[in-house]
């Protein structure tokens, strides 16, 4: 009896699944038009003022002959200060952006700036205010917690970053640890930047207090000889809310996959998408022994 039932069921299942080729059907997707995309991160500490203008690519469209990033090189891009003084930025091929030297247009602490881009009948703009003060680290330290002989992952390090939050205002921060290396696999001369750690912080419920960030890792230094002294650049950025909200999400986005929650990117650009934001920067050295 068992054999009979199983045999009949296999036939029935085969009949049922015979229409499998119909199981993926096309459905009507949500439609959007291409939009202008505007990005600029302004700081008195930067040598240049840089603006990137591009065009978004609707997902549900024809993808033939399209580049990964659809940069717009013939837009009219201007930056205007709160006194109405403005300057147009030319497109610079080598930077893939609209670029001028900071000496041509002053980016000053506490001032408001508007960045505008026009292309055809489309116009986008974003506004930001430069944070008044820079904030510096009061402590930068590294501790080795695990001996490589007891761990399969190499030595285990805990890095601590500490700074004091200015009282009486809402503050946002980014701590970034960058390393530079020369790739022997490419040309043995060009220096590349490797972002080792990024952390976004705000002073919610910590106004005027010391803020501490920690970062621990196993593997990064595990590949180096343990006696080597390594010095890493550590940046503390005091940012406006737009820089903070954008990077908080952006740094947490590693591409789309069906097993991760979608990340909605922040935008403060009217008429399109993107971010016009501001920051102040200080730098420290982190010594790893």
């Amino acid at each position: 009896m068992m054999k009979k039932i199983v045999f009949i069921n296999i036939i029935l299942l085969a009949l049922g699944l015979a229409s499998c080729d119909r199981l993926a059907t096309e459905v009507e997707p949500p439609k959007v038009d291409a939009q202008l995309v505007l990005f600029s991160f302004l700081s008195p500490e930067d040598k240049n003022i840089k603006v990137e203008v591009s065009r978004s690519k609707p997902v549900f469209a024809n993808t033939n002959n399209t580049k990964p990033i659809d940069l717009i090189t013939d837009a009219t891009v201007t930056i205007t200060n709160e006194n109405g003084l403005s300057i147009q930025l030319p497109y610079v091929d080598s930077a893939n952006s609209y670029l001028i030297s900071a000496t041509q247009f002053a980016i000053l602490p506490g001032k408001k700036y508007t960045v505008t881009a026009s292309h055809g009948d489309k116009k986008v703009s974003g506004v930001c205010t430069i944070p008044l003060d820079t904030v510096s680290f009061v402590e930068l330290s590294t501790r080795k917690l695990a001996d490589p002989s007891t761990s399969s992952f190499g030595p285990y390090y805990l890095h601590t970053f500490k700074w004091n939050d200015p009282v009486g205002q809402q503050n946002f921060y980014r701590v970034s640890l960058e390393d530079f290396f020369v790739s022997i696999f490419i040309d043995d001369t060009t220096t590349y930047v490797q972002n080792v750690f990024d952390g976004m912080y705000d002073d919610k419920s910590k106004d005027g207090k010391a803020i501490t960030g920690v970062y621990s890792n196993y593997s990064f230094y595990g590949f180096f000889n343990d006696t080597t002294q390594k010095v890493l650049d550590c940046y503390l950025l005091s940012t406006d809310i737009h820089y903070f909200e954008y990077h908080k999400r952006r740094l947490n986005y590693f591409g789309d996959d069906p097993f991760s929650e979608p990340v909605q990117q922040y935008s403060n650009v009217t008429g399109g998408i993107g971010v016009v934001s501001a920051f102040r920067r200080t730098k420290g050295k982190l010594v790893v022994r």
Partner: protein
Amino acid sequence: MKQQTMKYLILICALLFVFNGWAQQKKVLSGYIREKGSKELLIGASVAVPKLRTGTVTNGYGFYSITLPSDTFEIIVSYVGMSPKAYKVDLRNDTELDVELTPIASLKEVVVSANKQNLRLAEQTRMSVIEIPVSQVKDIPALLGEKDVLKVIQLLPGVQKPSEGNSGIYVRGGGPDQNLIILDEAIVYNAFHLFGFFSLFNGDALKSIELTKGGFPARYGGRLSSVIDMSMKEGNKEKIKGEAGIGIIASRFLLEGPIVKNKASFLVSARRTYIDALTMPFMPPENKVGYHFYDLNAKANWEIDKKNKVYISGYFGRDKFRFRSQFGSGRDEGGVNWGNATGTLRWNHLVNNRLFSNTSFIFSDYQFSIYQKSLFDGSTFELNFGSGIRDYAIKQDFDFRPSANHTIKFGAHFIYHQFTPSAFVLKNQFSGEDTSSKVLLGSFENALYAEDDIKIGEKLRLNPGLRITHFTAQTKHYFNLEPRINSSYNLRSDIALKSSFAIMNQYVHLLTNTGLGLPTDLWVPSSDRLRPQRSWQVAAGGAKDFLEQNFSISVEGYYKEMKNIIAYKEGASFLAVDDGSGTNNANADPYSYENNITSGRGWSYGAEFLLQRKVGKFTGWIGYTLSWTQWQFDELNFGEKFWARYDRRHDISIVAIYKVKEQKDDKNGLTLSATWVYGTGNAITLPVAEFSAPIHSPSGNPNGGGFFSSTASQYTSRNAFRMAPYHRMDFGIQVTRKMQWWIRTWEFSLYNAYNRLNPFFYYTSTTSTGDVVLRQVTLFPIIPSLSWNIKF
């Protein structure tokens, strides 16, 4: 808080004392009600006293007690599907009356009116409660012929299913972790087999199934949205009986019988799938992949004497997915195993004829593990990762019936939860690595409760209750009061207006973003940072019985608010497995999973309609739900409210079972059944565009004011896109015949009879011409199946 707790205990004791003194003037009629033949105790059987227009029902262990004036009464005892019995009782002294009811061969249209007592919705104080007859579960057509309790619950109003074929339960806007699923007092943490396509409840072994969606009695707690309370059968006390079935993917059997006739009995049931056994021979010997699951239910009970009964019951189930490949001198193998084990030891003790006590010792365990083992050139690589939750619990429940107008339940529950967010072992002979780590978290969850079902006059019934809960979390202790009340006012004997209010707290949380019952779903405790989930719900409605036609109608409206509900943060991956690298040092944080989750609020409101017919040749129900569910998380969707994924504006279920011919003696039985369901499509988030989204380089390199060039997706706002609506019709035919030794049933069922291509998930795809299109994947087209069952 301790003082407050003591006050409540003193109040309860004082009430008991008062009732006890007052009840001395009256006489008590008490006893057990059983099914004749099997001696199975009947839950919810009715004991009516027509002369006084009063009555009571049996508790979860078949016990009843009613206090009446000293007089002579006619007592009518009834239960759905059984012939009622009438007794004349001279109640000059306290009297014990045990009753055995005989099953009616057919659930006939004509039943004596007393038997309809059980059918009366208008007579019940509680609302938002639906009892599902196990017999109906067996008659409803099912996917691949596998009868599934949770899929039948999905057909009830107020319950939403997640997606095609999935057994997940979403009740009144609540998440999949907000359902308290209880099997013989033990909490079941992962109720699914085969990634959610089947539930682990084998209908053959179940005696009763009850779903509560709101107006929760104080005896239940620990979850926000629903209680699914299931009891296993005890086992036939008179003779050996059995059932067996062969289906398209699984076979099962059940055996029950006496250990000591009329004193002790046992029940064993088992089920196993054989997809692996069928497909394995067709795979190449060097590459084998297999999957199977099995269930084992067992129960034994012993009636020590009139006042003491002991039950021991358990469930054990495992899902096993494995692969093995061979290459040259090497071998790779691995797999994923997960499953539940529960065990309950209960002692029923009749303290006196008004006070019934049940003491339960409960064990519940859910474990998940994933492993890989490689062998090459005599060296091995072994990786094991596991997670799980284990409960040890003691429950002490009392059922006190001081008068015909009061049914008081009170008790205390103590649970020790042991969470294992991660356990990791790595042995690598290639590199000499040998690492292991295990994170264990322990929490106590305790509760005291008391509730009273009160009749005030002829028309008004109240069920007020209070639950006091306590949970230990890291350094914090959470104490919460949970007041509950149900009320029912009879406009006429067959029409009642009802209302309810309940506050619930939930101290354990499920990290999942699919609700698909994936084995990687992780249960975690509330902590200093992760606060308990909390909800309050108010509901109001009415019930009308049509006694002559044997059906009832209920209409309910509800509003529920939830806070501290959890969700994964944007970008968090739910398939990420912690490799343990951060756990074997002094500074590792066992609560690190909290970094991936965020807390928010939820609102759910709507209306439900249910027309149900439990008795007769033609039975079934029509359910309709109109509902809205919104969530708000500060860290999701820019803090804006959004529709929950399973927000379902319209949900319709029609279930019809028609017994054309009842199997009797040598006559064949024939049962036809059909279901039709419709549901608004799920709310999902889709990418609509891609754009340049550079990451700023703080160092200003390269090129000064540097950008790390990259792209990102632009999405619709969260869950702003609706998938296509879901609808499906199933048919079933059962032909039953008495053979020499057994009764045989052939069942043919047709799942998705009109071959509706329902959406399972959407994905983007590029055509040969370069157009990117949105495609919908359908899981199940029309699927016929055949199964063969016997009963002896």
